[in-house]
């Protein structure tokens, strides 16, 4: 085998180095996508978990509540039996004015009493706290890790500007932490402040984000959890730091899991490239195979030879892909971190380290992808009889497989996919997996025959416009059906992915745009927090009357959103003054109407739920939603179901009076301000800003600005998806280049003869470019219905499974238009190297070529 590899395989690689490199690149891109996404994902979730653990210190339990834990709860908890110590905590992520320093995690703790909780002292060897009294007495005091201080060039007494909800604020370094344990949380980008200063800094009022609890020796966690739950009521979450870490990790993992689809697609496309390359290699080396068989090589040995080549490509591609992945992973981590921070208010900071498991998985994927891609061609090679191997051209001209059976199987597979999507027989990941498998199989089976059919129609058309190039390209494409269908398959898959995912993104965006136009109808939005999903700051309820007094203001509504757990999912409970809201807002009702909503919410103490909430929890008008309020569980009857895109886990909306009654919390996220007719919105905004300046965050946006900011956040969410779309296109591009290079190499003799007969290099080049254009066009035509199906699947059954939403379908015309412009350019560019190669070919050498 070693002899065969050295003589046959190595010489083939030498002769076709460019093709081998491109085949290798298919594996490299696929593996690099996988390994970079996996390692970034791992670093993000591990970083979040590690931060939770490190900050938790000796705490065995953590008490939290949506909207914050009131201060007095700490005394209540301290008085309970089995409690050794409690410590209030506020956590917030801020950014220094110097953005290059990265996000900074601010932890507010009670420095007077924290020594019982953290494995860390704020004096002595652990930290250099210059003057504890000064630290407590001055609200701008902060302790930084030595690592961060070094990065920012901070010494004790120096100050640094941070972007906090109230604006840019300078804090003074009064202590430095030695990097170990607690100080290593958030990758060392940590700042410690006094918890009471943090309350003021981040508008927490007299509340903490959570209370860490340490138990007396001999008190079990389960026993104390029960005691605390009983004492505090259902609105409080009592959980171990591990459980809390797990939950955060789970939320983020769900978000990043979506990128597995992207890496899966990249690998699948890579497999087709390998399949194509090996298929062609088998054809090109038929004489070699025939010679081998004639000399006594068994079919098994021939198959093994090709599989060994695939193994080598898999190993080298896997290794290079893993290495390439490490360079992309940091960028991926940054993007994932930013998105998870925007969406969930959690992120981690740090450098991506490639875990050995990811290296192993990436290598295995590379190898498996290569072997899977090469398996079919290797089997074909082993079955070639020596006599047929020497009969040149007979095999190439033979169309692949039994078309009818193949088409029938493809139609059945695709039909089953559509039927299953319309009426899912089961749910969860098995459903998604089955759908993708059946859909993929259907496309794979149908692409070959359909592409041939399309080419038979398109080639005469092309010949009419460009007689020489059209005929040349038509011969090349139809003359080797296997190679052509393999390339088109990779191309169609890439474009299906692009159109499907792009279509889904477009539909989601369109639905959200439509909803925003209907929902965001007031003139100004006075926000306390820049983050839409994590309140960095909350306004006091009393600000409502103050804003109402601003000249030009007609009405002010107080919007508040909390995110409690409902049946294990983090839903959104929102409240606002309903009566004035209904005067300006147009709801899209799926159950009930505006009257039932008005009466139900303002007079009968009922609630409204979003359509996705209704679908997820199978609750409709007249049924009840049980919510955990600080005073106990409260049941709200559903008055109406409306279309709402506020939360992917479902929204419950109630009148503000109900929220105040049961939650006893008057703080506000956003004041919706409507101005008097004829009043200048910009002037009113300036007046509001002036009134809030220095006291509260002054994030005042007009309706257009607010919509633009939300749109920007949505775009940020899809930024990563766009990267993966680009990768899919890159693989498709590689596919065209490989196919064309192979095509030129295979037709060396033919090109030589054509040149001898007087064909000009430009004519040959045009033929190759047209070949590329036809490949791309057929791939695109096939991808149009497939991409539409894929988008429909994601917008419908898949979105409903995860969010309860069914997005109205919107065809991705924009993407199609972009592809129609980009694909010819990409194809022409991809054809450039092979065309040059053909043009430079020497007639004598070409004719001699075997």
């Amino acid at each position, binding site marked *: 085998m070693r002899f065969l590899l050295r003589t046959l395989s190595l010489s083939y690689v030498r002769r076709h180095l460019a093709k081998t490199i491109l085949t290798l690149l298919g594996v490299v891109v696929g593996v690099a996508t996988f390994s970079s996404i996996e390692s970034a994902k791992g670093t993000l979730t591990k970083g979040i978990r590690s931060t939770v653990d490190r900050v938790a210190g000796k705490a065995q339990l953590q008490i939290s509540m949506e909207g914050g834990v009131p201060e007095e709860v700490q005394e209540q908890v*301290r008085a309970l039996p089995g409690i050794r110590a*409690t410590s209030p905590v506020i956590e917030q992520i801020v950014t220094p004015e110097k953005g290059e320093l990265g996000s900074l995690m601010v932890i507010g703790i009670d420095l*007077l*009493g924290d020594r019982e909780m953290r494995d860390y002292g704020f004096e002595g060897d652990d930290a250099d706290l210059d003057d504890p009294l000064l630290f407590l007495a001055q*609200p701008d005091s902060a302790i930084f890790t030595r690592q961060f201080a070094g990065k920012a060039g901070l010494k004790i007494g120096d100050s640094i500007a941070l972007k906090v909800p109230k604006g840019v604020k300078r804090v003074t370094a009064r202590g430095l932490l030695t990097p170990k344990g607690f100080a290593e949380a958030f990758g060392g980008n940590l700042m410690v402040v006094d918890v*009471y200063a943090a309350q*003021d800094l981040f508008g927490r009022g007299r509340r903490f984000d959570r209370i860490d609890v340490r138990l007396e020796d001999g008190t079990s966690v389960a026993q104390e959890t029960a005691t605390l739950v009983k004492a505090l009521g259902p609105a409080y979450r009592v959980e171990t730091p591990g459980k809390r870490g797990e939950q955060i990790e789970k939320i983020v993992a769900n978000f990043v899991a979506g990128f597995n689809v992207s890496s899966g697609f990249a690998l699948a496309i890579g497999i087709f490239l390998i399949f194509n390359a090996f298929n062609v290699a088998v054809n090109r080396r038929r004489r070699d195979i025939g010679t081998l068989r004639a000399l006594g090589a068994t079919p098994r040995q021939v198959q093994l030879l090709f599989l060994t080549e695939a193994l080598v490509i898999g190993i080298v591609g896997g290794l290079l892909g893993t290495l390439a992945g490490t360079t992309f992973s940091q960028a991926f981590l940054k993007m994932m971190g930013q998105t998870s921070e925007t969406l969930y208010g959690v992120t981690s900071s740090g450098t991506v380290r490639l875990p050995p498991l990811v290296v192993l998985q990436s290598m295995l994927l590379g190898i498996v992808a290569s072997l899977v891609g090469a398996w079919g061609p290797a089997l074909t090679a082993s079955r070639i009889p020596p006599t047929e191997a020497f009969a040149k051209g007979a095999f190439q001209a033979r169309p692949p497989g039994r078309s009818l059976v193949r088409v029938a199987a493809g139609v059945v597979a695709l039909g089953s996919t559509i039927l299953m999507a319309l009426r899912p027989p089961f749910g969860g990941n098995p459903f998604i997996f089955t759908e993708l498998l059946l859909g993929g199989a259907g496309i794979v089976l149908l692409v070959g025959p359909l592409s041939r059919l399309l080419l038979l129609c398109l080639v005469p058309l092309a010949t009419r416009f460009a007689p020489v190039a059209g005929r040349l390209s038509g011969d090349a494409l139809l003359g080797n059906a296997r190679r052509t269908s393999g390339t088109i398959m990779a191309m169609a898959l890439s474009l299906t992915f692009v159109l499907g995912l792009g279509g889904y993104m477009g539909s989601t965006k369109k639905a959200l745009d439509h909803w925003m136009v209907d929902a965001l109808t007031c003139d100004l939005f006075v926000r306390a927090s820049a983050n839409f999903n994590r309140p960095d700051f909350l306004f006091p309820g009393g600000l409502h009357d103050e804003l109402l007094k601003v000249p030009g203001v007609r009405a002010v509504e107080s919007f508040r959103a909390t995110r409690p757990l409902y049946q294990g999912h983090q839903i959104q409970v929102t409240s606002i003054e309903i009566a004035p809201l209904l005067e300006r807002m147009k709801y899209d009702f799926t159950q009930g109407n505006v009257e039932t909503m008005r009466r139900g919410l303002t007079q009968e103490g009922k609630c409204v739920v979003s359509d996705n909430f209704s679908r997820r929890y199978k609750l409709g008008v007249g049924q009840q939603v049980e919510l955990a309020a600080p005073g106990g569980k409260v049941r709200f009857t559903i008055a109406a179901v409306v279309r709402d895109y506020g939360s992917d886990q479902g929204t419950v909306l109630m009148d503000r009076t109900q929220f105040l009654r049961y939650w006893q919390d008057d703080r506000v996220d956003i004041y919706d301000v409507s101005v008097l007719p004829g009043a200048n919105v910009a002037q009113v905004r300036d007046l509001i800003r002036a009134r809030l300046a220095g006291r509260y965050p002054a994030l005042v946006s007009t309706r257009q600005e607010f919509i633009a900011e939300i749109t920007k956040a949505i775009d940020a969410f899809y930024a990563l998806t766009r990267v993966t779309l680009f990768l899919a296109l890159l693989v498709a591009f590689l596919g065209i280049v490989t196919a064309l290079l192979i095509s030129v190499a295979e037709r060396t003799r033919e090109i030589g003869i054509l040149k001898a007969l007087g064909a000009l290099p430009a004519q040959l080049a045009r033929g190759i470019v047209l070949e590329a254009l036809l490949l791309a066009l057929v791939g695109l035509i096939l991808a149009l219905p497939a991409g539409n199906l894929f988008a429909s699947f994601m917008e419908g059954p898949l979105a409903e499974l995860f969010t309860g939403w069914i997005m109205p379908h919107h065809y991705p015309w924009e993407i199609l238009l972009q592809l129609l412009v980009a694909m010819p350019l990409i194809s022409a560019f991809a054809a450039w190297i092979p065309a040059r190669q053909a043009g430079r070919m020497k007639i004598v050498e070409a004719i001699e070529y075997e």
Partner: protein
Amino acid sequence: MFINKLIRNALLGLTVVLMSALSDGDVFAGADARALLKESESRHRTKTQQYAGELTVVNKDGKIRKKGWKSFREGYSGDAKNLIRFTDPPEVKGVGFLSLSRPGGQNPDQWLYLPSMKRERRIATQDRDSSFVGTDFNYEDMEEFDHEKYKVALQGEQTVESQPCYIIEAIPFEKSGKSVYEKKILFLRKDNLYLLREDLYRKGDKEPSKRMILSDLQQIDGHWVARRMEMKELKKGSTTTVLLKEIVFDRPQAAGRFTLQNLNREGGD
């Protein structure tokens, strides 16, 4: 009369001999220690005390931090109320500390007031071993010593700073509020029963973790007072010294001085 007294003393002596024969020596020694501490308390009890303190913290590296405060006390030992208000440097001016004894030997209520936050914060039991604003005193050290909260025993005698002293071991009763210390060794000057030194043993420690030394004894308004108070963290190697100035005893304190309202009052003393 004399005979009666003689008989009474003889009977008392006999009882003591019998008791000592029936029980171990500690009980006897304890009774002595208690008497000594009671006597000490009655001798040094004052209605009120106020002074201006000069606080110096020297850490193990020799770095020095200085602060100034005013201290007011009403009552003594188990019924003491204490207010400290920082006066210097300007960055910490107004920071206040209030400690109010509670009946039944419970741990006192303590609060720290920070003017920048305009609010007081309660010192929880769990925080009693935390450093008092970066000094070598903790919040428990800021309480008045109340021998009623300890099981006491006379351990012997020793000369401290050329002064013969009684050595008394004080072990906190767990039922009367938790202490951060396992035991305290008190050195009481024999002639005036004034506390000269206190060795403090944290739980589980064989050696004293902290030592308080009172020196520069003077008589002011007929009361003995140490004008220098020094607390050493023996393991950490840091020392906090308080120099007492402008000491005044038994001056009536303003009504409401030892209240939370006063603690939280801007510019309140």
